[in-house]
Each structure stands twice: as structure tokens, then as C-alpha cells.
């Protein structure tokens, strides 16, 4: 067992860690704004229509991976079912816009609210189980969505899919892609700010306690059920909104495509790869995976699935903490070369 650490004078007050965390959080808010600005300005530099298309995908996945991480990163519950909310949001927007002849924007706004409610209801049921059981349940969600979309033909257009009007009336495809990059970038800013905000609140601390030891958290007075459901509902809302925007972007919803476990798996892979315990992990993961995935789809389509599977397996086995956490550890080790036994033992055990 590691022995007690050398006490550093500053930590005597217990405030140094607190101050450092507050500073890091404030910095994150600014950095997120910078990221959004960079992404939104991207189309100025990138004029090729296909690259812009890939850009829309990338930013969209950044949004969804970060949203996934509201549950996965904080509570430790791994959902392989977020594709269900993606599809649900897409159909919500499409159906409302088509059936009620309202503008697409109103349909999107309605989708946000509906996804929040549906997310909460599903969360209440699904979060009654933990661990692997929870994962199973979320997979089932995706298939329920797929079946419903195909079964309620009069509402959803069945297996044939659903046409949806666009959000913007730009004529050229390249211009439309640019508009959607900006749209998703703004949504990304919102969800990242939310993640960062939660990270510093008592609510966030309670969620992290759920991840560490749910029973103990309960015995310390944390209402773990309510906390989990809220996080789940927030996560579902953002993924659903992304789905809705996606529907207006492509103009068409294919039930087999949107309700696929592959999409869920990609969100998990991106967050794991980048690091689930960091604000930037999912974004980093998406930035790596989406371009790679597109590359494979275009050049080596037969190997796309195998590659994704191998990557996920490799991350799980070799780097389960993700890139950012691994880099942090290396950084810490470099800064303190005369490591005490505790540190080495601690780093190895981390």
C-alpha cells in the first residue's frame, strides 16, 4: 500500500486544488468559444464541397459525442443506445414539420422539448439497472426505434424513409454545408459549456460519485436516481437535437441508417479514445475518427467495419483512459522526475 504523501505547504489549506480547478474551468469556457469560432470560420478556408460535407459530419459527431459524455463521462454508465435518440430527434423534426406545416425551425424547437421529456421517461426505466444490463437495455432501445419507424408507416413513411425540408434556402451544396457547419458549431458550444458547467457544480460532483461508487454515494445522501435521470435527459436532448438538424441537412431520413448501433458505437469510441473524463476528449476523438472513417469509406469500404472494431478493441484493451488522460500522466511524470514510490505505484495503478 502506498504510504502517506509528502505534504506540500500549499495543500495545507486544501485550497490550491480548488483554485486550480476553478481556473481551469474558466479557461475552458474561453477555449470553447475559440473552438466554435475556428470551426465556424472553417468554411472560409475550406471551399471544397466534399470536405465541407465531412466537416459537417465531424462537428455533428463532436456534438453527439460530448452529449454522450454527459452520461458516460460523469456517471460511468455506457449507453450504446444514443442512436435511438438521434433517430427519434430526426423523425420528430421531420414528422412535425411535415404534418403540421409549421416551419422547420419551430419543428426543431419542439423536438428539443420532446426529446427532453422522452429522454427523462426512458431514463427513469433504463437507469433502474446498472453495468452490463444497462448496456443491453440501451441496445434494445435502438431496435425499438427502428421497429417503430418501420412499423408506423403512415406517420414515418416506413422503411422507405421520410423527406424533410431544409433549414436554409441556400442554392449550392457547398454553401449549405457551410451553414450547417456553423449551426452544429454553435450547438457544440452550447453542449460543451453545459458539460463544463456541470463539471463544477454539486450536481456534477454527485454524478461523478455515482461513477465511482453508486451505493456509497447514496449512503452519503446523494439522490442518485434523480441525478442520473437528469443527466440522461440532457444527453438525449442534445443528441436528439443533432438528429433533428441532421434531418434537415440531408433532407431525408432512412430508418435503417439512423437507428443503427454503429452510430452509438462510434460515439462511445470517440469519447473513449479522447478520454471520457475530460471536456475535450469526445471532441478530440471525433476529430480523429470522423476523417479516418470517411477515408476508409471512400478508399477501402470493405475494411471500414473491421477497422472500427479493431480500433474500439484496441482502445479498450490498451488505452481505456483515453488520449488526454494518458498524456496528462506522461506530463506529470516528466515534471516530477524524482518520483516517489507512491507516485509510480499510483500512476501504474491509475
Amino acid at each position, binding site marked *: 500500500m502506498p504510504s502517506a504523501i509528502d505534504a506540500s505547504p500549499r495543500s495545507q489549506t486544501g485550497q490550491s486544488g480548488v483554485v486550480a480547478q476553478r481556473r481551469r474551468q474558466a479557461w475552458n469556457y474561453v477555449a470553447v468559444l475559440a473552438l466554435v469560432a475556428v470551426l465556424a470560420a472553417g468554411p472560409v478556408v475550406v471551399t471544397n464541397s466534399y470536405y465541407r460535407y465531412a466537416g459537417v459530419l465531424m462537428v455533428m459527431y463532436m456534438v453527439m459525442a460530448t452529449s454522450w459524455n454527459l452520461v458516460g463521462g460523469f456517471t*460511468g454508465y*455506457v449507453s*450504446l443506445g444514443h442512436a435511438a435518440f438521434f433517430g427519434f430527434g430526426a423523425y420528430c423534426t421531420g414528422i412535425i414539420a411535415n404534418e403540421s406545416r409549421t416551419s422547420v425551425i419551430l419543428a426543431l424547437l419542439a423536438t428539443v422539448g420532446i426529446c427532453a421529456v422522452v429522454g427523462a421517461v426512458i431514463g427513469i*426505466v*433504463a437507469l*433502474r*439497472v*446498472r*453495468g*452490463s*444490463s444497462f*448496456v*443491453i*437495455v440501451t*441496445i*434494445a432501445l*435502438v*431496435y*425499438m426505434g427502428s*421497429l*417503430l419507424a*418501420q*412499423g408506423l408507416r403512415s406517420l414515418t413513411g416506413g422503411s422507405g424513409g421520410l423527406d424533410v425540408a431544409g433549414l436554409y434556402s441556400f442554392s449550392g451544396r457547398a454553401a449549405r454545408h457551410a451553414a450547417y457547419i456553423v449551426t452544429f458549431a454553435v450547438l457544440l458550444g452550447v453542449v460543451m459549456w453545459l458539460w463544463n458547467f456541470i463539471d463544477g457544480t454539486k450536481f456534477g460532483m454527485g454524478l461523478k460519485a455515482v461513477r465511482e461508487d453508486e451505493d456509497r454515494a447514496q449512503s452519503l445522501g446523494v439522490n442518485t436516481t434523480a441525478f442520473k435521470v437528469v443527466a440522461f435527459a440532457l444527453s438525449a436532448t442534445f443528441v436528439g437535437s443533432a438528429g433533428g438538424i441532421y434531418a434537415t441537412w440531408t433532407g431525408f431520413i432512412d430508418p435503417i441508417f439512423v437507428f443503427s*448501433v*454503429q452510430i452509438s*458505437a462510434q460515439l*462511445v469510441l470517440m469519447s*473513449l479514445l479522447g478520454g471520457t473524463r475530460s471536456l475535450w476528449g469526445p471532441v478530440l476523438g471525433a476529430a480523429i475518427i470522423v476523417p479516418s472513417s470517411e477515408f476508409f469509406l471512400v478508399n477501402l469500404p*470493405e*475494411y*471500414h*467495419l*473491421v*477497422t*472500427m*472494431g*479493431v*480500433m*474500439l*478493441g484496441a482502445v*479498450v*484493451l490498451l488505452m*481505456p483512459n483515453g488520449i488526454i488522460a494518458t498524456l496528462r500522466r506522461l506530463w506529470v511524470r516528466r515534471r516530477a522526475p524524482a518520483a516517489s514510490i507512491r507516485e509510480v505505484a499510483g500512476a501504474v495503478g491509475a
Partner: protein
Amino acid sequence: MTRSLFIQSVVFGILSGGVYALLASGLSLYFGVMRIVQIAHPAFLFLGAYLTYSLHNRFDIDPLLTMPITVPLFFVTGMAIQRLLLARLRDENAAMMSVLLTFAIAVVVEGGLSAVYTGSYRSIDVEYAKKAFDWFGVRIPRDRVIGLVVAGATLMLLFAVLRYSRYGRSLRATMQHPEAARLVGVETERVRAIGFGIGMATAAVGGAVLSIITTFFPSGHWEWIARLMAIIVVGGLGSVGGAAVAAFVLGIIEAVVQSWLSPVWAGMVFYLFLFVTLIFRPQGFFGGRLAQRY
């Protein structure tokens, strides 16, 4: 719905239930042995079906007679996967990470299948299986009966091994209390590896059966995993018998709904039961006390 159609559906459901039961019990075995949910189980089922298909087409071997080849192959592969991959997970989150790892394996298997066989639907037609029995006006497809017989025989063999063999006792000891088992000399690592191998072997059997009763395509396994998972949750994680009972019950209900409404709603049966179980009895109807915590 007419009475004869109803009886027809029930019979059909029993036949499907048998196959579901075989596969679900394999899944329960994985859970009991290693506390992991082997998401890749149906993927290997499909791999088995494709292998049977290839062996049948290339060498003209009867699908059921490919089992002497595929079963040992899968057994060894299962042991290898457990030893080389799953045993490497030593983490607090091992249960969760193993789900992701088996998920990754499933994706790799599917990717391999679609690269080699492409996405087109395949199936095997064998003469003796194409007809149907007629039993008091009820039409019973022969291929399904064969499926039930093979599945049933395998299940009974599995239960016999678990109950009466020395290995079965070691396995049950390891499932219940690994440390205590180790203390009395059980080599738990080896037991786990063999257990995994047996699970995979049941996938090989299931694959051979699947190849003659239905068409298959690479991404079809996801539908199966969702259904099998629903069966396991309803029956109760860790309860092999419970999974079998749930498999038959849900199989029958699915078949009836399919005749009555449509295949789409038939699929929903599994998920509805899953959610109802979660709401009212999360540990399943026959499950152990802390089943839902895994």
C-alpha cells in the same frame, strides 16, 4: 384469428423457442462464468452459419454434418479469445469494458463476413428439410423440427455436463465463488477458458441450425443480440433455466403476434417484455438477487 392459425403459431413459437433457448443459455453461461455479457455471441452464430454455408457449397457436406468441424474449431477459438483478450481486462470497470470489447469483436466479425461474403442474403436448401410434417392439420416445417431436435439435444448435453461432470462441478464452483474454488484447487482461469469455449461451441451448433432454417446476412446478428438480451433480462441474468423458460414463452408470443399483426410488431414483443420486466422486476423472473447490478 382462427383457432387453427393460433395453434399453428403456437407450434411455430415452440420451435423457435428451442433455438432461442439454446442461444440464450449459451449467453447465460458466459455471464455466469465471467460476469460478462458476450455481445458477440450472435455474431459468432452467424459466422457459424456462414462457415456451414461455405463448407456445404464447397465440399457438399450436409449442414448438420459440418458440426464435427465447426464445433471444435469454435471451442478452441473461444478459449483463445478468453485467454488472449478478455482475461487481459483487469479493471474496476471490467464488466463494462468487457461489453465494449465483445462489442468490438462483434463488429470485427461482421466486418469480416461482409468483406468476404458481401451483404447479399444467403441460405441453404436441403431436400430433407424443405418439406413439412402434417400433424392434425397443423403444418410443421421440417427444418424447424430439426432445429428444435438439435437444439434440444445440445441443451440437454450442456445441462448434463454442467450437472454431472467433474468439469461441470468446477465450473459451477467458479461461477458461485471464484476464491473458494481456487482454495480447493480449481484452476479457475482454465475453467473460465473452457467455459467460454463451450459457449462458442453452442454458437457453432446454433449456426448450423440457423443456416438451414432461415436466410442470413452479415448485419443480422444485431437483431438477435437485442432479442437474446431481452430473453436474458426477462429470465434473469445468470439463470440458465430462467433464460430457457423465457425463450419459449417469448418465442410463442412472438409467433402469435406475427400471425395476428405483423412481423414488425412481433419484434416489439421482446422489447416490450424487456421494459415491463425492468419496471416491475428488474432482476428478472428467475434471476439472482443482484443480477441487475452487473
